[in-house]
């Protein structure tokens, strides 16, 4: 079974590049060049150097002893929360800013929901001295004030998206519109494995360093690169793509994607795309999408702004359809409880997105010999307000 993108940009029936003609030259330029640029030794050298000395990679694969005792299994946490800026998002923005430079672009735009991708983009733009505009839903700007100020401190202009419900989907719309209006000098750094081909593949490749490291680290730890399970949360799906990437063809490794059920899958306030979505086209690709019978996109809901997106990357739609990845979903409350549990057992306060991945432990049927790797995609600093508001600790 092939789980990677094919030559025309598809993962099974999903993917492609469903874009207005005005964006065609940009996407085509990227499609023609991304693989060869990524293969250039000078690109590789700079990318690896920045990941090591700036981001702080490799991130630890931490054996969570107390958690393992509690769940009768061998549980490792991949500590993406220890990356510079506090989440895996920066693996992608480092890669894409180097890509933008190679393509001769002068300006950067990005969308952001929780603000993690916005901060990671603002950070690399400061690092490279490039002008940066980040679109963020007006509602999210109010919900995630500290990240807005972080971006501003870094010299980025944060523009409120005022259309739709003023959240991540609308910020993405605005970023695409900006790109249509500034097609030649600007690169759009998409924050997840979404968007038109080649974005999903390019972002997955930049994030694939996560599973590359897991394999090496597990080999050292247990003398075997293969865990029984890899677990990651799925918003658009970039941290999951990175954590799964090098295990996709190792079919004996069970891969679990955790989506946000919000207030419950059937509550009408959810972001569990594989449970609720149907094939559709949004933001340049054909994928599973939460939508009405009339094909209008439904506004999702999750306590976690980073999982609050009505679609998933096309590769995940394919991984879901083929059954290679098992998708489960957990509610706001289950995720928050798992976040508190991790804080109390291991002294790690996770991002609420990552807390969704932690909550999977409760529903997995584990035995003592099972080796589980959970991708801890980010740290909880940005979510302090949400933890406080939730209050049950």
């Amino acid at each position, binding site marked *: 079974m092939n789980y990677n993108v094919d030559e025309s940009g598809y993962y099974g029936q999903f993917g492609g590049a469903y874009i207005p003609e005005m964006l065609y030259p940009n996407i085509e330029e990227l499609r023609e060049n991304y693989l060869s640029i990524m293969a250039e030794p000078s690109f590789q050298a700079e990318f690896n150097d920045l990941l090591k000395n700036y981001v702080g990679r490799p991130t630890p694969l931490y054996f969570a002893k107390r958690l393992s005792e509690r769940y009768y299994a061998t549980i490792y946490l991949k500590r993406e929360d220890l990356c510079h800026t506090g989440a895996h998002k920066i693996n992608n923005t480092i890669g894409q800013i180097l890509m933008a430079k190679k393509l001769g672009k002068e300006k950067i735009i990005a969308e952001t929901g929780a603000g993690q991708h916005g901060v990671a983009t603002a950070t690399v733009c400061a690092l490279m001295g490039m002008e940066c505009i980040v679109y963020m839903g007006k509602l999210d700007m109010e919900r995630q004030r500290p990240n807005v100020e972080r971006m501003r401190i870094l010299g980025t202009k944060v523009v409120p998206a005022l259309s739709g419900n003023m959240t991540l989907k609308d910020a993405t719309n605005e970023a695409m519109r900006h790109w249509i209006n500034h097609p030649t000098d600007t690169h759009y750094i998409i924050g997840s494995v979404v968007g038109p081909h080649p974005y999903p593949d390019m972002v997955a490749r930049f994030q694939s360093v996560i599973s590359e490291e897991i394999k090496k680290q597990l080999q050292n730890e247990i003398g075997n690169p293969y865990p029984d399970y890899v677990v990651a949360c799925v918003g658009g799906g970039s941290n999951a793509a990175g954590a799964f990437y090098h295990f996709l063809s190792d079919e004996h490794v069970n891969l679990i994607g955790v989506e946000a059920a919000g207030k419950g899958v059937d509550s009408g306030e959810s972001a569990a795309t594989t449970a609720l979505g149907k094939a*559709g086209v949004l933001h340049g690709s054909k994928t599973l999408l939460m939508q009405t019978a009339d094909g209008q996109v439904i506004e999702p809901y999750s306590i976690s702004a980073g999982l609050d997106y009505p679609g998933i990357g096309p590769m995940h739609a394919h991984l879901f359809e083929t059954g290679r990845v098992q998708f489960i979903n957990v509610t706001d409350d289950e995720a928050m409880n798992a976040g508190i549990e991790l804080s109390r057992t291991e002294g790690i306060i996770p991002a609420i997105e990552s807390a969704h991945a932690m909550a999977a432990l409760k529903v997995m049927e584990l035995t003592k010999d099972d080796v589980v790797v959970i991708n801890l995609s980010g740290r909880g600093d940005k979510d302090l307000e949400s933890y406080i508001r939730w209050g049950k600790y």
Partner: protein
Amino acid sequence: MENRITKLFARKKKNILSVFYTAGFPTLQDTVSIGIHLEAAGVDMIEIGIPFSDPIADGPTIQESNKIALNQGMNVELLLNQVAELRAKLKMPIVLMGYLNPVMQYGVEKFCTKASAAGVDGLILPDLPIDEYVKHYKELMESLNLSISFLISPTTPDARIKKIDALSSGFIYAVSSSSTTGAKKEFSKEQQDYFRKLQSFKLTHPFLIGFGISNHKTYSQACEYGAGAIVGSSFITCLKESKNQQEDIHQFVQSLIS
């Protein structure tokens, strides 16, 4: 029966005025009456927009009309019924323009079949990739006598313009600038150079210039280079502010063409 778009362009080589409006805006039932007023006012063709929740190629004016139409309950089924009603009262070509997703959910084949039966002459689906069209829908649309118009923009490479020309039927939609939809006051020198280039290509299909046409000046500039012009956002603004649609539509069209 011969396609009304083909017939129009065979009869009229210059100064074609095509007007875009969003179905179900300003009120749900206006789709029909606006079309009738436009024909009476001397317009050559209409493009009716199928509203979508996430219109990424559109500026604020058309975005807002989409949102209002959807809130009022516009959908593909209702639109096709309105178009059938409109067709009974209208001679000019009717084009439906919309993003792919609502059409896909309705079912592309069912959509095309019903649209054709309702008297639609052509489609514009800005986010349908050309290769997808060729692979899955070309035969279907041809068999139903539905034309398809693809977009080109100032950044479209020359070779691709020719490919688009070869695959289009009816007319080509030349987007005037690298931008989303929205009214502009005049065209720059670069834009006019691009129009001249298109003219020099001697394409098989006529092209209409759209995006940014808002007044007599931009309309006549567009007509100088192309077969005519497409007006959208400024007409939506006219509708939004109108107290008497028949009179205001007449005035709007007059202000463009004379």
